[in-house]
């Protein structure tokens, strides 16, 4: 436990790395939730599964770039299939909001334990060189951590450009705001939903691989443990708002790592939770919500 001021600057650096991983994951999570209204609790386990696929590629001599590609591809394909083969059929059958949460939780538990059954109750480690330690702005970061930050920044720029500058992005935002109105206006909402799962899956896969590149080892529960911080970041920014999730990720990344340096690493998730509770007490729908709030907000 470090208490000197000299620990502060490096902890900011680690905070930015955590924020980068969290941003990839939280944007994917919140984008999909905003458009489909399905609270996908299997998200964390899909991250672990993507990391596992990346690990298999890595064990067969693949480079880290190939692992990242494999993870992203697996995340994308499995997310689209999961929606097409499981979630949409349940929705068509009339399963309600809560039933869908249980469906996603069931899928998550099954994916996690399938990994446990296939891979065993061990830690998996990627074979790779984290590179030289560099000190930009007084941080102590491995080259691999700089790469993680670059991937996240690149990913955020791509998502933001996609949402604000393209027709698909416009259609996605319209679908998120009001699905039936979007459909009535001639938007092929089914294809928009597919695109949302695809993009969310790519981010999920990337986040899964970079999460374990940063921690170097992972097990079958790694993703589902991280999901809690993802949810916190998404809620902080207002669920369904990708730009909000980016800010939420930044706040939580910094809070967890700075608190780890000054209080204790054991409590960093707890600090994330405390921040979430405080924000929700003040702004029940996230930091960026208007005071009038969403249409379904319960009057206090």
């Amino acid at each position, binding site marked *: 436990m470090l208490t000197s001021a000299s620990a502060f600057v490096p902890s900011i650096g680690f905070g930015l790395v955590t924020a980068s991983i969290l941003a990839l994951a939280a944007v994917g999570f919140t984008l999909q939730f905003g458009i489909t209204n399905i609270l996908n609790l299997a998200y964390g386990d899909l991250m672990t599964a993507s990391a596992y696929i990346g690990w298999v590629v890595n064990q067969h001599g693949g480079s880290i770039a190939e692992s990242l590609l494999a993870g992203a591809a697996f995340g994308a394909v499995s997310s689209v299939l999961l929606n097409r083969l499981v979630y949409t059929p349940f929705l068509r059958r009339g399963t309600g*909001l809560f039933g869908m949460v249980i469906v996603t939780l069931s899928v998550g538990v099954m994916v996690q334990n399938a990994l446990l059954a296939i891979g065993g109750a061990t830690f998996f480690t990627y074979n790779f060189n984290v590179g030289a330690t560099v000190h930009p702005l007084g941080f102590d970061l491995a080259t691999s951590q700089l790469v993680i930050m670059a991937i996240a920044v690149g990913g955020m720029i791509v998502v933001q450009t996609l949402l604000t500058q393209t027709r698909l992005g416009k259609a996605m935002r319209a679908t998120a705001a009001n699905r039936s109105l979007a459909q009535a206006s001639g938007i092929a909402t089914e294809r928009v939903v597919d695109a949302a799962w695809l993009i969310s899956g790519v981010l999920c896969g990337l986040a899964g691989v970079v999460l374990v590149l940063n921690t170097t080892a992972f097990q079958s529960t790694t993703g589902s443990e991280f999901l809690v911080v993802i949810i916190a970041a998404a809620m902080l920014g207002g669920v369904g708002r990708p730009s909000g999730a980016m800010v939420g990720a930044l706040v939580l990344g910094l809070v967890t790592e700075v608190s780890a340096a000054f209080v204790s690493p054991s409590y960093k998730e707890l600090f994330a939770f405390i921040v979430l509770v405080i924000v929700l007490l003040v702004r029940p*729908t996230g930091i960026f919500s208007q005071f009038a709030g969403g249409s379904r907000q319960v009057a206090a």
Partner: protein
Amino acid sequence: MSGWAFYATTLLVYLGVDIMAVWGLNLQYGVAGVYNFGFIVFQAVGAYVGAVLTLGPSSSNGGFQAYIIGANLPFPIPILAAGVVSGLLSVVVGVITLRRLRTDYQAMVFLVLSVAATLFVTNDTGLFNGPAGLSLIPQPLSSLVNPSSINWQWLYVGITAAFCIVIYLFVHRVTSSPLGRTLRAIRDNEDAARALGKDVMRMRLFIFVMGNVIAGISGAVLVQFIGAWSPGSWLYVETFVFFTAIIVGGTGNDAGVMLGALLVPVAFNEITRYLPQIGRPGLIDAIQWIVIGALALVFLWFWPRGVIPERRRRFARAPAPVETPTEAMQDTTYAIEGG
């Protein structure tokens, strides 16, 4: 022969504890529509409170485990206190989450709470002995009956059954009263219930606290029987097992969820105990979780109302015919025309 008796009595206690828990969760979810994904936390709180009030000071037994309080209180005070503490904590949690948040936000906050609580208790070693958890918790009434005898086992089955009966009477009273009707109305159409002047927030908070008091009691009853409790006993997925039990048995139906408790946590976990260990260690556990997940999916697909569905409630008196607003408006128009 006595081996079987020990096994049977142990199963009966587990069954009683699980039945209490699903009744508590069913009050929240099945009756009132509160999606408490952190239910297991309140069972855990009850278990820890029950444990530290039963245990002597932390320094006893050579001080091999660190924990707070250590009050050495006699049965049944620790169990009742567990319910009280669990209830007080729920008031705090409920006021924060139920008051202002949308239902899906609430579900997320409860899930986050569940994981954060596990991390907190695991990392704070001075509170409840950290990741190793508490053990050697004294068994109640051991001064009267030898706790390793079959008689004590049967005695504890009786104690568990007594708690079950008291909780059943309470749960039944809530669900069959006008209060239960209001709660179901809130579950089925929150806006309509509010329009009729029901205080949705207060009702939800009440049922949230009551369900968690039951969870706390069930946790304390369990911990006094098994004598040990650790963070591994209450991971967030354990709540999922209770939800599966409710869905399989019949959401909103007291008898149904009782059957669910028998089928899912008890029968399921115990059947697999006798499977030969195949493959690597932990493989059976993993398969068991996969099957529980599949069970929830299969029931939600084919029998979303469970084995024993919630019964349709009939009311003695048919509701009086209500004038629709359009008719009322037409009447006014005629009146104006007539005048």
